[in-house]
């Protein structure tokens, strides 16, 4: 697979179809993977592809607006590209998507044992609720050859854990999230790693008005985390990057999943499947639920 990726990348740069390739390379630690930006055909040798390629590289597309970019994209990454197209953040003609067939990526945190209580190594949780292994959008698709590696076992109910949490009592839920949010250090890594957090100036940084408290307190942290989640409603494609980036282990995917589930159940809406669909909150249906309204 990697040879074909390299070949394609090399060809794209050589024939000047793209100015830059965004891909994966080995990190200095020799195990994990880092993003790489290649503009010379001969440097495509550096590219790699394996189950450590956790990044959603589409996050970098905003840095290169107006240039022709080749990007390596897994299924989840491609879905965020669709949302970016939907929201006019990209021009389709400016990007060349090298879609890669993916059979799950590793849970990097456990693997690199940042948390010493390492449980069994394995796939990232998010891959267990992701069905498609092929990106929904690509210009060229690099499929796996030979025997397919073992894919992660799919969850029967992708929202099982959400349902479980929903069933808890209000005070239990509150206590749980109070603890989680209390660790938030407001580094905004969740925002910065998110391909869909492309706002030129995030509300969190605005001061006129000051939408949310800068204080590293439950008050400020709660507001930030709810704001982030609300702003991804109907947009999040569950690439899980926010949770991976979070240094203090806040289960951000759980919040995203909760909204994803509601949006699907209430409005039959799924993000990142078509660049033509309207933004969830910029449209409505006459029959939207209103049993919660007096």
């Amino acid at each position, binding site marked *: 697979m990697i040879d074909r990726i390299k070949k394609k990348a090399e060809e794209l740069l050589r024939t000047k179809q793209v100015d830059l390739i965004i891909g994966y390379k080995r990190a200095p630690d020799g195990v994990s993977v880092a993003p790489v930006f290649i503009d010379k055909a001969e440097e495509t040798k550096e590219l790699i592809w394996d189950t450590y390629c956790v990044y959603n590289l589409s996050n970098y597309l905003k840095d290169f*607006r107006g240039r022709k970019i080749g990007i390596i994209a897994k299924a989840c990454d491609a879905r965020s590209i669709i949302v970016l197209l939907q929201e*006019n953040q990209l021009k389709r003609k400016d990007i060349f998507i090298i879609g890669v067939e993916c059979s799950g990526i590793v849970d990097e945190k456990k693997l690199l044992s940042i948390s010493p209580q390492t449980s069994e190594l394995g796939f990232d949780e998010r891959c267990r609720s992701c069905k498609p292994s092929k990106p929904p959008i690509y210009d060229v698709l690099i499929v796996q050859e030979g025997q397919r590696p073992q894919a992660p076992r799919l969850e029967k109910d992708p929202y099982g854990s959400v349902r479980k949490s929903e069933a808890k009592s209000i005070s239990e839920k509150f206590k749980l999230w109070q603890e989680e949010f209390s660790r938030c250090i407001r580094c905004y890594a969740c925002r910065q790693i998110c391909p869909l957090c492309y706002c*030129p100036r995030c*509300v969190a940084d605005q001061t006129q*008005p000051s939408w949310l408290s800068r204080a590293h307190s439950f008050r400020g942290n709660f507001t930030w985390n709810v704001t982030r989640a609300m702003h991804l409603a109907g947009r999040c494609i569950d690439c899980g990057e926010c949770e991976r980036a979070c240094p203090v282990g806040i289960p951000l995917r759980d919040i995203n999943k909760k909204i994803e589930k509601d949006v699907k159940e209430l409005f039959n809406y799924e993000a990142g499947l078509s660049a033509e669909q*309207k933004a969830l909150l910029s449209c409505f249906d006459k029959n939207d639920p209103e049993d919660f309204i007096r």
Partner: protein
Amino acid sequence: MKIGVFVCHCGTNIAATVDVERVSQEAAKEPRVKFSTTYRYMCSDPGQNLIKEAVKKHHLDRIVIASCSPSLHEKTFRKCAEKAGVNPYLMEMANIREHCSWVHQDRVEATAKAIELIRLALAKVSRNKPLEYLYIPIEKKVLIIGGGIAGIQSAIDIAFANYPAVILEREPSIGGRMARFDKTFPTLDCAACILTPKMVTVSQSKHVTMHTYSEIEGVKGHVGDFTVTIRKKARSVDINKCTGCGACYNKCPVRVPSEFDMGLGKRTAIYIPFPQAVPNVPVIDRQNCLWFTKQKCGICKKICPFEAIDYDMQDEIIEEKFGAIIVASGFTQFNHAVYGEYGYGKYKDAITGLHFERMANSSGPTGGKIIRPSDGKEARDVVFIQCVGSRDEQKGLSYCSRLCCMYTAKHALLLKEHNKDAQAYVFYIDIRAAGKNYEEFVKKVQDEYGAVYLRGRVSRIFEKSGKLIVRGADTLSGAQIEIKADLVVLATGLVAQPDAPGLARMLHIPYDRNNLFTEAHPKLAPVETITSGVFLTGACQSPKDIPDTVATASAASVKALGLMVQDRLQREPLVAKVDAKTCSGCFACIQACSFTAIEEEEIEDKRLKKKRLIAKVLEGVCTGCGNCTAVCRMSAIDLEGFSNRQIMEEIEAL
């Protein structure tokens, strides 16, 4: 910042429950407040003078008025501020009457709340920005949707003021419902006699253009500058060549039921709906014309001396600009098929009021004879049933259609006039005859024309030996009544046109659950809509008789002319604004704007040194609803007057 707080007693309305003096003292202690006082009636001239003098004396630059609801006096105090030399948008009101003194009795609590409400207003006003009125140019032309009496009257009024009017009518002729009526209550003028001259006036006016046999396809823009797309349906007859000689329809071999005559008479495939049609130009009914159905015949084309017949004519789409729109799209009849007990459709001799009108008309299909459609014999005993559909929430309409009582009385009278031996029976719930000479008219019908009025509902109608047996109750005498009727006439209610909601959406005007268009205010703005530049007249808004319709038509015309005579239009500057630096160009706002008031704009981004697309608000189109601001994740779009800073400041002050 120097804020002045003015607390109104409103006589005792506020002062009885709220300790206004204390409120004023507390307000004076708030940050930035330089002056605070109370007065008996702040909205009165002396009250306003007090404000003006205080502004001058204390150099106030912002004003908070603690009084009644802004819905009532916001405009008053904005003007007052302006006269005092303070930007009108640097004034905020604290509603300490409707939201405080009137809804609370405890003086301590109400006073405390009033202080907080002022604190809220202070917070908001501290973030207000001076705003300047917006001015927009006006296209000096009025569109009138509908060519019934409402539309005709509007066109005449506008033309009289020497402004161009365009009537859009989907039928081949103007005239509408009124053209079908025989006589009009209570004066018994012949409808045609009073309508036809108006139709002629319209057709001869150099200021009026008519698009008959045309439909509205779309409306863009805003007051002063509407762009309307009109589909001129293919008439198959060249309106410029036709002289209305009638040769074509006299020779046409096809006979189909006439819509104008409610199916009681026949018309040809090339036809004019009625003799006085304006324009007097036939139209080919392509569904029934032999040329179009079987590619045969072609007689009309051969016979027309002016070569006006054009079988190949296509629909034409035109775009025209207007400064104002008058909606006069009228009504239709309630479909009473839901009342199985009245036997409509089952029994040929159960008809509606409009059928009766056509029969009573001497130039109508029966030549003025009231007959039984089943056998053509003259009807003697006729039962009129009122409130068919009206005032029946279960099966029909919640409202009263207002004119059925009167037209039924008129029918009872006409019946007697057409046939001395006839007898009218009227089943009614209540008689509503509120109008000049209306009650007298009904009385006359009962007393002089011998119409029998029975208060009660009809329970069943069935056929027996050629007659319709009408069973009902007379609730006044308590007797069960059974009448052997020759004819039953149902006074069906008035309902909105089936496509009214579509039109409303095009025009961005609201409509109620009966699909009737909603006026801006039921009392004080009865012909205006919330979309400025769009006015209502006639029965598209609510059931109206001819005098009311004509009155609202003239009212709507005056409103439209009020716009026409202005050089430019002043608008409240409470519109959305985009901060170019913050906008990402995701255009969530464009998708969420119900008024297409936002468009894409290319700017040079100095920071990125690149061109990029961002959102731009068309100030003239924006209605200031603020929906865009709430879907904007980066808060790049904000609403003047209700800005994020203002609202957040209010929240922080709570």
